[in-house]
Protein backbone atom coordinates (compact mmCIF):
# COMPACT_ATOMS: atom_id res chain seq x y z
CA UNK A 1 0.00 0.00 0.00
CA UNK A 2 1.40 3.33 -1.08
CA UNK A 3 -0.06 6.45 0.45
CA UNK A 4 0.86 9.78 -1.04
CA UNK A 5 -0.13 13.24 0.07
CA UNK A 6 1.95 16.00 -1.47
CA UNK A 7 1.72 19.73 -2.06
CA UNK A 8 4.08 21.56 -4.33
CA UNK A 9 4.33 24.83 -6.24
CA UNK A 10 6.61 25.26 -9.22
CA UNK A 11 6.25 28.37 -11.32
CA UNK A 12 2.56 28.77 -12.01
CA UNK A 13 1.87 25.08 -11.47
CA UNK A 14 0.42 23.71 -8.25
CA UNK A 15 0.35 20.03 -7.34
CA UNK A 16 -2.01 19.06 -4.55
CA UNK A 17 -2.52 15.34 -4.47
CA UNK A 18 -3.73 12.73 -2.03
CA UNK A 19 -3.93 9.15 -3.28
CA UNK A 20 -3.46 5.62 -2.11
CA UNK A 21 -2.31 2.81 -4.35
CA UNK A 22 -3.09 -0.80 -3.46
CA UNK A 23 -2.11 -4.13 -4.98
CA UNK A 24 -2.49 -4.93 -8.65
CA UNK A 25 -2.16 -2.34 -11.38
CA UNK A 26 -3.23 1.22 -10.70
CA UNK A 27 -3.22 3.56 -13.65
CA UNK A 28 -2.44 7.24 -13.17
CA UNK A 29 -4.10 9.00 -16.04
CA UNK A 30 -3.97 12.59 -17.17
CA UNK A 31 -3.00 14.82 -20.04
CA UNK A 32 0.61 15.88 -20.42
CA UNK A 33 1.36 18.67 -18.00
CA UNK A 34 -1.19 17.39 -15.49
CA UNK A 35 1.58 16.60 -12.99
CA UNK A 36 1.93 12.84 -13.51
CA UNK A 37 5.69 12.73 -14.01
CA UNK A 38 6.24 15.16 -11.16
CA UNK A 39 4.30 12.85 -8.86
CA UNK A 40 6.34 9.85 -10.02
CA UNK A 41 9.60 11.73 -9.38
CA UNK A 42 8.40 12.60 -5.86
CA UNK A 43 7.47 9.01 -5.05
CA UNK A 44 10.79 7.75 -6.44
CA UNK A 45 12.79 10.27 -4.40
CA UNK A 46 14.11 12.19 -7.39
CA UNK A 47 12.23 15.36 -6.52
CA UNK A 48 11.34 16.85 -3.17
CA UNK A 49 7.77 18.04 -2.55
CA UNK A 50 7.41 21.27 -0.63
CA UNK A 51 5.04 19.62 1.85
CA UNK A 52 3.50 16.25 2.41
CA UNK A 53 3.96 12.64 3.37
CA UNK A 54 4.71 9.50 1.37
CA UNK A 55 4.33 6.11 3.05
CA UNK A 56 5.02 2.74 1.42
CA UNK A 57 3.83 -0.38 3.25
CA UNK A 58 4.01 1.51 6.53
CA UNK A 59 7.55 2.74 5.79
CA UNK A 60 7.81 6.54 5.77
CA UNK A 61 9.67 7.62 2.63
CA UNK A 62 9.01 11.31 3.00
CA UNK A 63 7.48 13.46 5.69
CA UNK A 64 7.91 17.20 5.71
CA UNK A 65 6.65 17.41 9.32
CA UNK A 66 9.40 15.21 10.71
CA UNK A 67 11.96 16.09 8.00
CA UNK A 68 12.23 12.52 6.73
CA UNK A 69 13.40 12.29 3.14
CA UNK A 70 14.83 8.91 2.20
CA UNK A 71 17.18 9.07 -0.80
CA UNK A 72 16.00 7.20 -3.91
CA UNK A 73 18.39 4.33 -3.25
CA UNK A 74 16.76 3.49 0.07
CA UNK A 75 13.12 3.75 -1.02
CA UNK A 76 12.77 0.42 -2.84
CA UNK A 77 10.67 2.08 -5.48
CA UNK A 78 11.41 0.63 -8.92
CA UNK A 79 11.06 3.09 -11.78
CA UNK A 80 10.76 2.53 -15.51
CA UNK A 81 11.17 5.88 -17.25
CA UNK A 82 9.81 7.05 -20.59
CA UNK A 83 13.18 6.45 -22.17
CA UNK A 84 14.67 3.13 -21.06
CA UNK A 85 17.78 4.69 -19.47
CA UNK A 86 19.83 1.53 -19.88
CA UNK A 87 23.52 1.88 -19.04
CA UNK A 88 25.17 1.97 -22.48
CA UNK A 89 28.56 0.54 -21.44
CA UNK A 90 27.12 -2.55 -19.74
CA UNK A 91 25.65 -5.67 -21.31
CA UNK A 92 21.95 -6.39 -20.94
CA UNK A 93 22.81 -8.96 -18.26
CA UNK A 94 24.90 -6.46 -16.25
CA UNK A 95 22.10 -3.91 -16.64
CA UNK A 96 19.50 -6.39 -15.40
CA UNK A 97 21.57 -7.32 -12.36
CA UNK A 98 22.72 -3.76 -11.58
CA UNK A 99 20.44 -3.51 -8.54
CA UNK A 100 22.20 -6.54 -7.10
CA UNK A 101 25.89 -6.01 -7.89
CA UNK A 102 25.89 -2.20 -7.58
CA UNK A 103 22.75 -1.52 -5.54
CA UNK A 104 23.31 -4.29 -2.99
CA UNK A 105 19.65 -5.33 -3.24
CA UNK A 106 18.89 -8.74 -1.76
CA UNK A 107 15.81 -10.99 -2.03
CA UNK A 108 15.53 -10.15 -5.70
CA UNK A 109 13.55 -12.45 -7.96
CA UNK A 110 15.51 -15.02 -9.94
CA UNK A 111 17.08 -13.72 -13.17
CA UNK A 112 15.72 -16.73 -15.06
CA UNK A 113 12.17 -16.09 -13.87
CA UNK A 114 12.26 -12.45 -14.95
CA UNK A 115 13.78 -13.41 -18.31
CA UNK A 116 10.91 -15.86 -18.81
CA UNK A 117 8.34 -13.29 -17.81
CA UNK A 118 9.64 -10.62 -20.20
CA UNK A 119 11.25 -12.76 -22.91
CA UNK A 120 14.81 -11.57 -22.30
CA UNK A 121 16.85 -14.81 -22.61
CA UNK A 122 18.11 -14.07 -26.11
CA UNK A 123 19.05 -10.47 -25.25
CA UNK A 124 21.29 -11.15 -22.25
CA UNK A 125 24.67 -10.79 -23.98
CA UNK A 126 23.67 -7.93 -26.26
CA UNK A 127 24.73 -4.33 -25.83
CA UNK A 128 21.88 -1.88 -25.11
CA UNK A 129 22.56 0.14 -28.27
CA UNK A 130 21.64 -2.89 -30.41
CA UNK A 131 18.15 -3.22 -28.87
CA UNK A 132 14.92 -1.96 -30.42
CA UNK A 133 12.87 0.53 -28.40
CA UNK A 134 10.48 -2.19 -27.24
CA UNK A 135 13.27 -4.56 -26.25
CA UNK A 136 15.04 -1.78 -24.35
CA UNK A 137 11.86 -1.03 -22.37
CA UNK A 138 11.43 -4.70 -21.51
CA UNK A 139 15.01 -4.78 -20.24
CA UNK A 140 14.33 -1.61 -18.22
CA UNK A 141 11.27 -3.25 -16.66
CA UNK A 142 13.28 -6.40 -15.88
CA UNK A 143 16.07 -4.32 -14.36
CA UNK A 144 13.60 -2.53 -12.09
CA UNK A 145 11.95 -5.81 -10.99
CA UNK A 146 15.34 -7.39 -10.29
CA UNK A 147 16.14 -4.62 -7.82
CA UNK A 148 13.44 -6.15 -5.59
CA UNK A 149 11.20 -3.06 -5.36
CA UNK A 150 8.18 -2.84 -3.07
CA UNK A 151 6.32 -1.04 -5.85
CA UNK A 152 6.99 -0.51 -9.53
CA UNK A 153 6.37 2.87 -11.18
CA UNK A 154 5.99 2.81 -14.95
CA UNK A 155 6.16 6.38 -16.24
CA UNK A 156 4.59 6.30 -19.71
CA UNK A 157 6.84 3.42 -20.75
CA UNK A 158 5.32 3.23 -24.23
CA UNK A 159 5.13 6.93 -25.07
CA UNK A 160 8.41 6.95 -26.99
CA UNK A 161 7.52 3.90 -29.08
CA UNK A 162 5.72 3.79 -32.41
CA UNK A 163 2.50 1.84 -32.93
CA UNK A 164 4.18 -1.41 -33.97
CA UNK A 165 6.56 -1.38 -31.00
CA UNK A 166 3.72 -0.61 -28.63
CA UNK A 167 1.74 -3.55 -29.95
CA UNK A 168 4.84 -5.70 -29.48
CA UNK A 169 5.37 -4.78 -25.82
CA UNK A 170 1.74 -4.63 -24.59
CA UNK A 171 1.33 -8.41 -24.23
CA UNK A 172 4.46 -8.46 -22.04
CA UNK A 173 3.01 -5.73 -19.86
CA UNK A 174 -0.18 -7.77 -19.66
CA UNK A 175 1.79 -10.71 -18.30
CA UNK A 176 3.71 -8.43 -15.99
CA UNK A 177 0.48 -7.02 -14.59
CA UNK A 178 -0.83 -10.48 -13.72
CA UNK A 179 2.30 -12.34 -12.74
CA UNK A 180 4.85 -9.95 -11.25
CA UNK A 181 3.23 -9.86 -7.82
CA UNK A 182 4.59 -6.36 -7.28
CA UNK A 183 2.07 -3.52 -7.09
CA UNK A 184 2.33 -1.34 -10.16
CA UNK A 185 1.57 2.34 -10.66
CA UNK A 186 1.18 2.77 -14.39
CA UNK A 187 1.34 6.34 -15.66
CA UNK A 188 -0.20 6.92 -19.05
CA UNK A 189 -2.28 9.22 -21.17
CA UNK A 190 -3.38 6.39 -23.48
CA UNK A 191 -6.79 5.00 -22.53
CA UNK A 192 -6.29 1.79 -24.53
CA UNK A 193 -3.28 0.87 -22.40
CA UNK A 194 -5.16 1.63 -19.22
CA UNK A 195 -8.30 -0.32 -20.09
CA UNK A 196 -6.12 -3.27 -21.00
CA UNK A 197 -3.81 -3.28 -17.99
CA UNK A 198 -5.26 -1.49 -15.01
CA UNK A 199 -7.47 -2.61 -12.12
CA UNK A 200 -7.81 0.81 -10.58
CA UNK A 201 -7.66 4.24 -12.13
CA UNK A 202 -6.62 7.59 -10.74
CA UNK A 203 -7.31 10.61 -12.89
CA UNK A 204 -5.15 13.68 -12.40
CA UNK A 205 -5.84 17.05 -13.95
CA UNK A 206 -4.11 20.40 -13.39
CA UNK A 207 -2.19 19.06 -10.43
CA UNK A 208 -5.18 17.58 -8.59
CA UNK A 209 -6.95 14.23 -8.39
CA UNK A 210 -10.36 14.39 -10.08
CA UNK A 211 -11.40 10.74 -9.71
CA UNK A 212 -10.15 7.41 -8.44
CA UNK A 213 -11.53 3.91 -8.05
CA UNK A 214 -12.01 0.69 -10.01
CA UNK A 215 -11.23 1.33 -13.65
CA UNK A 216 -14.69 0.46 -15.08
CA UNK A 217 -16.38 2.75 -12.64
CA UNK A 218 -14.07 5.72 -13.13
CA UNK A 219 -13.97 5.46 -16.90
CA UNK A 220 -17.76 5.55 -17.16
CA UNK A 221 -18.17 8.51 -14.87
CA UNK A 222 -19.67 11.50 -16.54
CA UNK A 223 -17.47 14.18 -14.99
CA UNK A 224 -14.26 13.03 -16.68
CA UNK A 225 -14.75 15.02 -19.87
CA UNK A 226 -12.25 17.79 -19.21
CA UNK A 227 -9.53 15.38 -18.07
CA UNK A 228 -9.92 12.68 -20.66
CA UNK A 229 -10.87 14.80 -23.64
CA UNK A 230 -14.34 14.46 -25.10
CA UNK A 231 -13.20 12.48 -28.06
CA UNK A 232 -11.98 9.63 -25.89
CA UNK A 233 -14.69 9.61 -23.25
CA UNK A 234 -16.35 6.23 -22.97
CA UNK A 235 -16.94 3.24 -20.78
CA UNK A 236 -15.31 -0.05 -20.01
CA UNK A 237 -17.41 -3.22 -20.01
CA UNK A 238 -16.54 -6.71 -18.86
CA UNK A 239 -17.92 -9.81 -20.51
CA UNK A 240 -16.95 -13.25 -21.76
CA UNK A 241 -16.51 -14.76 -25.18
CA UNK A 242 -19.70 -16.64 -25.95
CA UNK A 243 -19.05 -18.00 -29.45
CA UNK A 244 -17.33 -17.25 -32.73
CA UNK A 245 -19.10 -16.73 -36.05
CA UNK A 246 -16.33 -17.69 -38.41
CA UNK A 247 -18.35 -17.25 -41.60
CA UNK A 248 -18.72 -13.54 -40.90
CA UNK A 249 -15.50 -13.04 -38.89
CA UNK A 250 -17.40 -11.99 -35.81
CA UNK A 251 -17.23 -12.90 -32.15
CA UNK A 252 -20.23 -12.84 -29.87
CA UNK A 253 -19.66 -11.74 -26.29
CA UNK A 254 -22.02 -12.22 -23.41
CA UNK A 255 -22.48 -9.24 -21.19
CA UNK A 256 -24.58 -9.74 -18.08
CA UNK A 257 -26.99 -11.97 -20.01
CA UNK A 258 -27.13 -9.83 -23.14
CA UNK A 259 -25.17 -10.35 -26.32
CA UNK A 260 -22.72 -8.07 -28.06
CA UNK A 261 -21.17 -8.77 -31.47
CA UNK A 262 -17.68 -7.52 -32.24
CA UNK A 263 -15.12 -8.08 -35.01
CA UNK A 264 -13.50 -11.50 -34.47
CA UNK A 265 -11.03 -11.82 -31.63
CA UNK A 266 -9.07 -14.85 -30.45
CA UNK A 267 -9.95 -16.85 -27.34
CA UNK A 268 -12.00 -19.80 -26.16
CA UNK A 269 -15.59 -19.56 -25.04
CA UNK A 270 -15.71 -18.27 -21.47
CA UNK A 271 -12.55 -16.16 -21.79
CA UNK A 272 -13.10 -12.88 -19.90
CA UNK A 273 -12.91 -9.83 -22.10
CA UNK A 274 -12.67 -6.13 -21.42
CA UNK A 275 -14.17 -3.82 -23.91
CA UNK A 276 -13.96 -0.08 -24.20
CA UNK A 277 -16.77 1.69 -25.96
CA UNK A 278 -16.56 5.37 -26.75
CA UNK A 279 -19.59 7.40 -25.73
CA UNK A 280 -19.88 8.94 -29.19
CA UNK A 281 -20.33 5.44 -30.69
CA UNK A 282 -23.46 4.77 -28.63
CA UNK A 283 -26.96 5.82 -29.73
CA UNK A 284 -30.16 5.51 -27.70
CA UNK A 285 -33.71 4.43 -28.65
CA UNK A 286 -36.86 4.08 -26.58
CA UNK A 287 -38.12 1.08 -28.57
CA UNK A 288 -36.17 -1.85 -29.96
CA UNK A 289 -35.51 -0.81 -33.56
CA UNK A 290 -36.21 -3.28 -36.35
CA UNK A 291 -34.62 -3.59 -39.79
CA UNK A 292 -31.41 -1.86 -38.83
CA UNK A 293 -27.79 -2.66 -39.66
CA UNK A 294 -26.65 -2.16 -36.09
CA UNK A 295 -26.20 -5.57 -34.49
CA UNK A 296 -25.78 -4.54 -30.92
CA UNK A 297 -28.94 -3.51 -29.18
CA UNK A 298 -28.68 -3.63 -25.40
CA UNK A 299 -31.52 -3.08 -22.99
CA UNK A 300 -30.40 -0.39 -20.58
CA UNK A 301 -31.72 1.77 -17.77
CA UNK A 302 -30.96 5.49 -17.80
CA UNK A 303 -28.98 6.35 -14.68
CA UNK A 304 -27.93 9.94 -15.12
CA UNK A 305 -28.12 12.69 -17.72
CA UNK A 306 -25.85 15.69 -17.92
CA UNK A 307 -27.14 18.47 -20.12
CA UNK A 308 -24.63 21.01 -21.28
CA UNK A 309 -24.92 24.39 -22.95
CA UNK A 310 -23.51 23.02 -26.19
CA UNK A 311 -25.09 20.60 -28.63
CA UNK A 312 -24.48 17.46 -26.57
CA UNK A 313 -25.95 15.57 -23.65
CA UNK A 314 -24.02 12.93 -21.77
CA UNK A 315 -26.13 9.97 -20.73
CA UNK A 316 -25.00 7.33 -18.27
CA UNK A 317 -26.91 4.07 -18.55
CA UNK A 318 -26.81 0.77 -16.70
CA UNK A 319 -26.40 -2.58 -18.43
CA UNK A 320 -27.02 -5.08 -15.64
CA UNK A 321 -24.42 -4.14 -13.04
CA UNK A 322 -22.24 -2.19 -15.44
CA UNK A 323 -22.23 1.35 -16.79
CA UNK A 324 -22.42 2.32 -20.43
CA UNK A 325 -21.99 5.90 -21.44
CA UNK A 326 -23.61 7.55 -24.46
CA UNK A 327 -23.20 10.96 -26.03
CA UNK A 328 -26.23 12.13 -27.98
CA UNK A 329 -27.47 15.54 -28.99
CA UNK A 330 -29.22 17.57 -26.37
CA UNK A 331 -32.06 17.94 -28.84
CA UNK A 332 -32.56 14.15 -29.09
CA UNK A 333 -32.41 13.74 -25.34
CA UNK A 334 -35.20 16.30 -24.89
CA UNK A 335 -37.33 14.93 -27.72
CA UNK A 336 -37.09 11.39 -26.34
CA UNK A 337 -37.86 12.71 -22.88
CA UNK A 338 -35.01 10.74 -21.34
CA UNK A 339 -35.01 10.76 -17.56
CA UNK A 340 -33.24 8.74 -14.87
CA UNK A 341 -34.95 5.39 -14.33
CA UNK A 342 -36.37 5.18 -17.88
CA UNK A 343 -35.88 1.99 -19.91
CA UNK A 344 -34.11 2.38 -23.24
CA UNK A 345 -32.04 0.56 -25.82
CA UNK A 346 -28.40 1.33 -26.48
CA UNK A 347 -27.29 0.92 -30.08
CA UNK A 348 -23.61 0.23 -30.74
CA UNK A 349 -22.14 -0.32 -34.18
CA UNK A 350 -19.94 -3.42 -34.13
CA UNK A 351 -17.40 -1.74 -36.37
CA UNK A 352 -16.97 1.08 -33.86
CA UNK A 353 -15.45 -1.41 -31.45
CA UNK A 354 -11.99 -1.15 -32.91
CA UNK A 355 -10.01 -3.56 -30.87
CA UNK A 356 -11.65 -5.24 -27.93
CA UNK A 357 -8.95 -5.87 -25.42
CA UNK A 358 -8.67 -9.35 -24.03
CA UNK A 359 -8.05 -9.58 -20.35
CA UNK A 360 -7.03 -12.91 -18.92
CA UNK A 361 -8.63 -12.38 -15.57
Amino acid at each position, binding site marked *: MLEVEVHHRAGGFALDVGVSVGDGVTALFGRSGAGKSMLVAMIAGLMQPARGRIVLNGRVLFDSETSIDLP*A*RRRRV*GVVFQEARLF*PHLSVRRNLL*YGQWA*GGRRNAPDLGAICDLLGLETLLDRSPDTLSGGEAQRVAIGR*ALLSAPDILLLDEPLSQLDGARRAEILPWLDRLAHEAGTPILYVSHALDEITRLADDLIVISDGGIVASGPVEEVISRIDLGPATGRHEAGSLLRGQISRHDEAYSLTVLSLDGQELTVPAIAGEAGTPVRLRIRARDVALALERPLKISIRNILAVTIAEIAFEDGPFAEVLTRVGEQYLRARITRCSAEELGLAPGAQAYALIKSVAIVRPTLASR
Partner: protein
Amino acid sequence: MLSTEAVSALTLSLKVAGLAMVVALPLALFAGYALARWRFPGKALLTVLIYLPLVLPPVVTGYMLLIIFGPNGAIGRWLEQSLGLVLAFRWTGAALAAGVMAFPLLVRPIALAFAAVDQRLEDAAGTLGAKPGTVFFTLTLPLAAPGIFAGVALGFAKALGEFGATITFAANIPGETRTLALAVHTALQRPDGDMLAIGLSMIALSVGALAVGLSEFAASRLRRKRRA
Protein backbone atom coordinates in the same frame (compact mmCIF):
# COMPACT_ATOMS: atom_id res chain seq x y z
CA MET B 1 71.84 5.59 -32.98
CA LEU B 2 70.72 8.14 -30.38
CA SER B 3 73.42 9.90 -28.46
CA THR B 4 73.51 9.37 -24.68
CA GLU B 5 72.52 12.99 -24.32
CA ALA B 6 69.38 12.44 -26.37
CA VAL B 7 68.49 9.22 -24.54
CA SER B 8 68.97 10.91 -21.18
CA ALA B 9 66.78 13.84 -22.24
CA LEU B 10 64.03 11.54 -23.55
CA THR B 11 63.90 9.26 -20.51
CA LEU B 12 63.96 12.27 -18.20
CA SER B 13 61.13 13.88 -20.17
CA LEU B 14 59.05 10.69 -19.95
CA LYS B 15 59.76 10.45 -16.20
CA VAL B 16 58.88 14.11 -15.60
CA ALA B 17 55.70 13.97 -17.73
CA GLY B 18 54.72 10.62 -16.16
CA LEU B 19 55.03 11.92 -12.61
CA ALA B 20 53.22 15.14 -13.60
CA MET B 21 50.28 13.08 -14.92
CA VAL B 22 50.15 10.69 -11.96
CA VAL B 23 49.89 13.59 -9.53
CA ALA B 24 47.73 15.85 -11.70
CA LEU B 25 45.14 13.28 -12.84
CA PRO B 26 43.32 12.78 -9.50
CA LEU B 27 43.28 16.56 -9.01
CA ALA B 28 42.06 17.06 -12.58
CA LEU B 29 39.29 14.47 -12.09
CA PHE B 30 38.16 16.29 -8.97
CA ALA B 31 38.41 19.74 -10.57
CA GLY B 32 36.74 18.54 -13.78
CA TYR B 33 33.86 16.97 -11.87
CA ALA B 34 33.46 20.07 -9.70
CA LEU B 35 33.42 22.40 -12.72
CA ALA B 36 31.01 20.18 -14.63
CA ARG B 37 28.56 19.30 -11.87
CA TRP B 38 28.71 21.58 -8.86
CA ARG B 39 27.72 25.13 -8.14
CA PHE B 40 29.78 26.68 -5.40
CA PRO B 41 31.00 30.12 -4.41
CA GLY B 42 34.35 30.90 -6.02
CA LYS B 43 33.73 28.66 -9.02
CA ALA B 44 34.62 31.45 -11.44
CA LEU B 45 37.84 32.12 -9.52
CA LEU B 46 38.78 28.43 -9.60
CA THR B 47 38.13 28.33 -13.34
CA VAL B 48 40.41 31.33 -13.88
CA LEU B 49 43.16 29.79 -11.72
CA ILE B 50 43.01 26.48 -13.59
CA TYR B 51 43.09 28.02 -17.04
CA LEU B 52 45.53 30.83 -16.25
CA PRO B 53 48.70 28.85 -17.21
CA LEU B 54 47.22 28.47 -20.69
CA VAL B 55 47.36 32.22 -21.35
CA LEU B 56 50.18 33.47 -19.09
CA PRO B 57 53.70 33.65 -20.51
CA PRO B 58 55.21 30.33 -19.31
CA VAL B 59 58.15 32.17 -17.82
CA VAL B 60 55.72 34.06 -15.58
CA THR B 61 54.14 30.79 -14.42
CA GLY B 62 57.64 29.45 -13.69
CA TYR B 63 58.53 32.59 -11.78
CA MET B 64 55.36 32.34 -9.69
CA LEU B 65 56.15 28.71 -8.92
CA LEU B 66 59.57 29.86 -7.78
CA ILE B 67 58.00 32.46 -5.51
CA ILE B 68 55.62 29.93 -3.98
CA PHE B 69 57.57 26.65 -4.07
CA GLY B 70 61.14 28.00 -4.18
CA PRO B 71 63.58 27.71 -1.24
CA ASN B 72 62.26 30.99 0.17
CA GLY B 73 58.65 30.50 -0.86
CA ALA B 74 55.95 29.93 1.73
CA ILE B 75 55.08 26.42 0.66
CA GLY B 76 58.61 25.60 -0.53
CA ARG B 77 60.10 26.32 2.87
CA TRP B 78 57.37 24.38 4.65
CA LEU B 79 57.87 21.37 2.38
CA GLU B 80 61.63 21.41 3.01
CA GLN B 81 61.37 21.80 6.77
CA SER B 82 58.57 19.32 7.44
CA LEU B 83 59.02 16.73 4.68
CA GLY B 84 62.58 17.37 3.50
CA LEU B 85 61.15 17.82 0.03
CA VAL B 86 62.91 20.24 -2.32
CA LEU B 87 61.29 20.99 -5.65
CA ALA B 88 63.18 23.89 -7.17
CA PHE B 89 66.03 22.85 -9.46
CA ARG B 90 65.10 19.14 -9.11
CA TRP B 91 63.41 16.79 -11.59
CA THR B 92 60.38 16.71 -9.28
CA GLY B 93 60.23 20.48 -9.68
CA ALA B 94 60.29 20.02 -13.45
CA ALA B 95 57.35 17.65 -13.01
CA LEU B 96 55.50 20.27 -10.94
CA ALA B 97 56.09 22.91 -13.62
CA ALA B 98 55.04 20.50 -16.38
CA GLY B 99 51.97 19.44 -14.38
CA VAL B 100 50.81 23.00 -13.75
CA MET B 101 51.26 23.92 -17.40
CA ALA B 102 49.47 20.79 -18.60
CA PHE B 103 46.63 21.03 -16.06
CA PRO B 104 44.24 23.17 -18.18
CA LEU B 105 44.61 20.80 -21.13
CA LEU B 106 43.94 17.88 -18.80
CA VAL B 107 40.93 19.42 -17.03
CA ARG B 108 39.05 20.73 -20.05
CA PRO B 109 38.26 17.39 -21.81
CA ILE B 110 37.57 15.77 -18.44
CA ALA B 111 35.08 18.47 -17.44
CA LEU B 112 33.36 18.20 -20.83
CA ALA B 113 33.21 14.41 -20.50
CA PHE B 114 31.64 14.60 -17.03
CA ALA B 115 29.15 17.21 -18.24
CA ALA B 116 28.21 14.91 -21.12
CA VAL B 117 27.31 11.96 -18.88
CA ASP B 118 23.51 11.78 -18.76
CA GLN B 119 22.50 12.48 -15.18
CA ARG B 120 19.21 10.71 -15.77
CA LEU B 121 21.22 7.48 -15.92
CA GLU B 122 22.61 8.32 -12.50
CA ASP B 123 19.06 8.90 -11.22
CA ALA B 124 18.08 5.50 -12.57
CA ALA B 125 21.06 3.91 -10.81
CA GLY B 126 19.92 5.55 -7.58
CA THR B 127 16.46 3.99 -7.84
CA LEU B 128 18.20 0.62 -8.24
CA GLY B 129 19.87 1.09 -4.86
CA ALA B 130 23.34 2.35 -5.81
CA LYS B 131 25.12 4.78 -3.46
CA PRO B 132 26.59 7.98 -4.96
CA GLY B 133 30.14 6.61 -4.81
CA THR B 134 29.08 3.40 -6.51
CA VAL B 135 27.23 5.39 -9.17
CA PHE B 136 30.41 7.39 -9.81
CA PHE B 137 32.65 4.37 -10.23
CA THR B 138 30.18 2.13 -12.11
CA LEU B 139 28.60 4.75 -14.38
CA THR B 140 30.04 8.26 -14.41
CA LEU B 141 33.72 7.34 -14.59
CA PRO B 142 33.42 4.60 -17.27
CA LEU B 143 31.11 6.77 -19.37
CA ALA B 144 33.55 9.69 -19.13
CA ALA B 145 36.58 7.45 -19.79
CA PRO B 146 37.18 8.47 -23.44
CA GLY B 147 37.24 12.14 -22.39
CA ILE B 148 39.56 11.39 -19.50
CA PHE B 149 41.88 9.47 -21.82
CA ALA B 150 41.83 12.34 -24.31
CA GLY B 151 42.78 14.74 -21.52
CA VAL B 152 45.62 12.55 -20.29
CA ALA B 153 47.06 12.11 -23.78
CA LEU B 154 46.94 15.84 -24.43
CA GLY B 155 48.25 16.74 -20.98
CA PHE B 156 51.06 14.20 -21.27
CA ALA B 157 52.13 15.63 -24.62
CA LYS B 158 52.09 19.14 -23.20
CA ALA B 159 54.08 18.07 -20.12
CA LEU B 160 56.62 16.33 -22.34
CA GLY B 161 57.37 19.48 -24.30
CA GLU B 162 57.09 22.10 -21.55
CA PHE B 163 59.91 24.64 -21.69
CA GLY B 164 59.38 28.10 -20.23
CA ALA B 165 58.08 27.32 -16.77
CA THR B 166 60.50 24.40 -16.40
CA ILE B 167 63.64 26.35 -17.19
CA THR B 168 62.55 29.18 -14.90
CA PHE B 169 61.57 27.03 -11.92
CA ALA B 170 63.83 23.94 -12.30
CA ALA B 171 66.67 25.36 -14.40
CA ASN B 172 68.59 23.44 -17.06
CA ILE B 173 70.65 20.84 -15.22
CA PRO B 174 71.91 17.93 -17.33
CA GLY B 175 70.48 14.61 -16.14
CA GLU B 176 68.29 16.35 -13.52
CA THR B 177 66.02 18.84 -15.25
CA ARG B 178 67.26 18.94 -18.84
CA THR B 179 64.19 17.52 -20.59
CA LEU B 180 63.75 17.20 -24.36
CA ALA B 181 62.75 20.81 -24.93
CA LEU B 182 65.57 22.10 -22.77
CA ALA B 183 68.06 19.81 -24.52
CA VAL B 184 66.98 21.20 -27.91
CA HIS B 185 67.44 24.71 -26.56
CA THR B 186 70.90 23.80 -25.22
CA ALA B 187 71.95 22.11 -28.47
CA LEU B 188 70.95 25.22 -30.41
CA GLN B 189 73.35 27.29 -28.26
CA ARG B 190 76.28 25.09 -29.39
CA PRO B 191 78.02 25.74 -32.77
CA ASP B 192 77.99 22.00 -33.59
CA GLY B 193 74.57 21.26 -32.07
CA ASP B 194 72.43 21.29 -35.23
CA MET B 195 72.33 17.54 -35.78
CA LEU B 196 71.53 16.90 -32.10
CA ALA B 197 68.81 19.56 -32.19
CA ILE B 198 67.26 18.01 -35.29
CA GLY B 199 67.36 14.50 -33.78
CA LEU B 200 65.78 15.70 -30.51
CA SER B 201 63.17 17.67 -32.42
CA MET B 202 62.23 14.58 -34.43
CA ILE B 203 61.71 12.64 -31.19
CA ALA B 204 59.58 15.41 -29.73
CA LEU B 205 57.60 15.57 -32.96
CA SER B 206 56.80 11.86 -33.03
CA VAL B 207 55.89 11.60 -29.36
CA GLY B 208 53.70 14.72 -29.61
CA ALA B 209 51.96 13.56 -32.78
CA LEU B 210 51.27 10.16 -31.22
CA ALA B 211 49.76 11.72 -28.10
CA VAL B 212 47.55 14.18 -29.97
CA GLY B 213 46.49 11.38 -32.34
CA LEU B 214 45.48 9.18 -29.41
CA SER B 215 43.65 12.08 -27.81
CA GLU B 216 41.68 12.75 -31.00
CA PHE B 217 40.87 9.06 -31.36
CA ALA B 218 39.49 8.98 -27.81
CA ALA B 219 37.50 12.16 -28.36
CA SER B 220 35.94 10.79 -31.55
CA ARG B 221 34.93 7.62 -29.69
CA LEU B 222 33.30 9.80 -27.07
CA ARG B 223 31.36 11.69 -29.76
CA ARG B 224 30.23 8.44 -31.39
CA LYS B 225 29.10 7.07 -28.08
CA ARG B 226 27.12 10.20 -27.31
CA ARG B 227 25.28 10.00 -30.63
CA ALA B 228 24.40 6.33 -30.12
